[in-house]
């Protein structure tokens, strides 16, 4: 791979003349979205991560946190700052794929470890994979694939599918169609940031579909669900967890009840680590944890497990320790595929009312020990 060679050259040149980094312990740079519209996700990931650090009581783990404002250019500059000035060993925290694409290749080329708490674009899983890059969350396509698998398994014959017109949206529909190969009632790309879905809902109504699959992260999904629920179209809805996560459910309200969504985590997964996490999170922050918080929590625990086995200065040993994934994941089973993305079960959750709180409950398993479609494309 020519790219990697060039990148290594760049790294060598950039590192030349830098003094020896942090002498002991591990310094982590967390770049995440803490201001603006998407701040909720970053805050959850940060809180989950810091909770794990606190519960582990590690004072040799130093975390520097910066706000990327959801702007890729800012994220790049913060990464430069973390690497050049803070001299961190490990980077983490990025929520959005486009920001990850901006930061990760350069960071790993400079010999840093990158542990993803969320974003895991296909470009970094296949051709652009790197031994120093680990995704602790999933590969971006996973939840969509699981939704496709679930639709096929549940016997739907004619889903209508929609996603925003940007790369992650196209990956989503591609991923869904990888495991649902039947007929589609329609396939629509909406404008990124669109808030009114009346036109699409009318198309759904007219299309003769028997179900709806959508991927509309953030406010887009909230708008869609509210409008859909009010439209009188009563087709079953399936989607990835993003629009039905704890942070967002409150805003969608009852419109979300009954929706099936795919997720690799849920707060009712029955294991000790998850119970400690859910209780600890509620005690610490006074709210229910979200998927992003769970991913942040697992990321920190993965890092701590590697710290227990190897010195971060010994990159090969540390990398091997990370790859073992010898930590108690809140998801239960967890291991890395050869391209450093998780092999895990993906569940089907249903949105339910628990007391007066709207939340999710696992109703099925969509895929077992699922890895991703890019394993073979990754040569490292």
């Amino acid at each position, binding site marked *: 791979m*020519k*790219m990697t060679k*060039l*990148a290594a*050259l*760049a790294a060598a*040149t*950039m590192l030349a003349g*830098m*003094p020896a980094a942090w002498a002991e312990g591990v310094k982590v740079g967390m770049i995440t979205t*803490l*201001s603006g519209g998407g701040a909720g996700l970053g805050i959850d990931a940060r809180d989950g991560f810091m909770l794990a650090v606190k519960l582990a009581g590690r004072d040799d783990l130093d975390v520097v946190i*910066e*706000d990327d404002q959801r*702007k*890729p*250019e800012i994220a*790049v*500059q913060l990464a*430069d*700052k973390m690497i*050049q*000035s803070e001299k961190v060993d490990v980077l983490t925290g990025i929520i959005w*794929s*486009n920001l990850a*694409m*901006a930061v990760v*290749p*350069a960071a790993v*080329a400079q010999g840093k470890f990158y542990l993803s708490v969320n974003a895991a*674009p296909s*470009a970094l899983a296949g051709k652009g994979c790197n031994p120093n890059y680990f995704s602790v969350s999933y590969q971006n396509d996973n939840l969509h694939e699981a939704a496709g698998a679930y639709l096929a398994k549940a016997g739907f014959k004619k889903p209508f599918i929609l996603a925003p*017109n*940007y*790369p*992650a949206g*196209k990956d989503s529909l591609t991923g869904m169609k990888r495991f649902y190969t039947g007929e589609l009632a329609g396939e629509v790309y909406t*404008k*990124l940031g669109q808030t009114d879905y009346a036109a699409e809902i009318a198309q759904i109504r007219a299309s003769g579909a028997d179900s709806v699959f959508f991927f509309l992260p953030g406010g887009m999904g909230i708008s869609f669900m509210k409008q859909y629920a009010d439209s009188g179209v009563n087709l079953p809805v399936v989607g990835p967890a993003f629009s039905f996560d704890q942070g967002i459910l409150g805003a969608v309200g009852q419109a979300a009840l009954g929706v099936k969504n795919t997720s690799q985590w849920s707060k009712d997964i029955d294991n000790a680590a998850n119970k400690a996490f859910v209780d600890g999170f509620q005690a610490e922050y006074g709210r229910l944890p979200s998927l992003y918080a769970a991913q942040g929590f697992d990321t920190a625990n993965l890092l701590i497990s590697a710290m227990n086995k190897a010195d971060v200065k010994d990159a090969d040993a540390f990398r091997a320790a990370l790859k073992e994934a010898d930590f108690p994941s809140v998801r239960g089973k967890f291991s890395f595929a050869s391209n450093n993305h998780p092999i895990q079960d993906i569940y089907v959750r249903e949105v339910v009312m628990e007391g007066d709180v709207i939340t999710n409950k696992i109703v099925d398993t969509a895929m077992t020990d699922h890895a991703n479609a890019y394993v073979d494309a990754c040569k490292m």
Partner: protein
Amino acid sequence: MNRETIINLLIALGLIAVPLWAIWADEPFIITLATKVAILALAGVGLNIALGLGGLVSFGHAAFFGIGGYAMGILASHAQNYTPMMEWPLLIEGTKSMPVIWLVAVLASALAALLIGVLSLRTSGVYFIMITLAFGQMLYYFAISWPAYGGEDGLSIYVRNGFPGLNTLDPAQFLALCYAVLFVVLFLSSRLAKSAFGLALSGARQNEDRLRTVGIEPFRLRLVAFVISGAVTGLAGALYADLNRFVSPTMFSWHMSGEIMVFVILGGVARLFGPVAGAALFIVMEHLLGGISEYWQVFLGLTLLGVVLFARGGLIGTLAGRKVTHD
């Protein structure tokens, strides 16, 4: 020497002294910040030609900034993937050479400015502000939904492009290069302001009737100014892409247009060093406030508001007093 000249000299000295200190104190990130200041200042210098001299309040300069950025991204990505951009009717290959990229960035953004200018300059006042904004948004949405070069994900360039005789991977050398470009453009822009063209352009801003009455049609002047302005901002875009080794549609967003405008106004409209002072102040604030509070943008907003309401003429206007136009 008048006060503004002294202030300009102090700013220039500061620009050079801070990175020298950073090298001595081993604070490499300060060098990155200084590079960012220089590049954004350059974008502001570009806008200032339209805004300060010509009175053309463009709310769409992110269009040129983004085009410059994508000129770099597209050329360099073809070079790094060893795929030609075009094979027929003639073979065009990508490149990793900064001078070539700069030339393409300047030409492409100048051409865009020509097209946007021809249409926009038919309007004036608020309509001009809004139509330039609309063109910027048009390109923004185009960049997001155009899949060939990454769409919203943008394009990563793994290694910074090269400049003959320099190691651009060394932050200090890249900074020196950006400074050199900035100072050359500042020099040219100071000449421009005093030239026949500058006299007429600024005259058109002050009184359009006067200009027509002496036989000069303002439209062509403004169009040329808009093209020069767009080209300089496009050059800044190419450098910014190289600083980040990354381009994305956010370079086209209206926030970017707003920020470039903020640099100019914060520093002082139509002041030679206004954009430099403005960009430096803005980035220092962003850097310092960002460390204090999660809600730092509130304080940034309050500071900007304070400058507009109470420090008219921006930083340099406040320090140097009234503008002196004669020699």
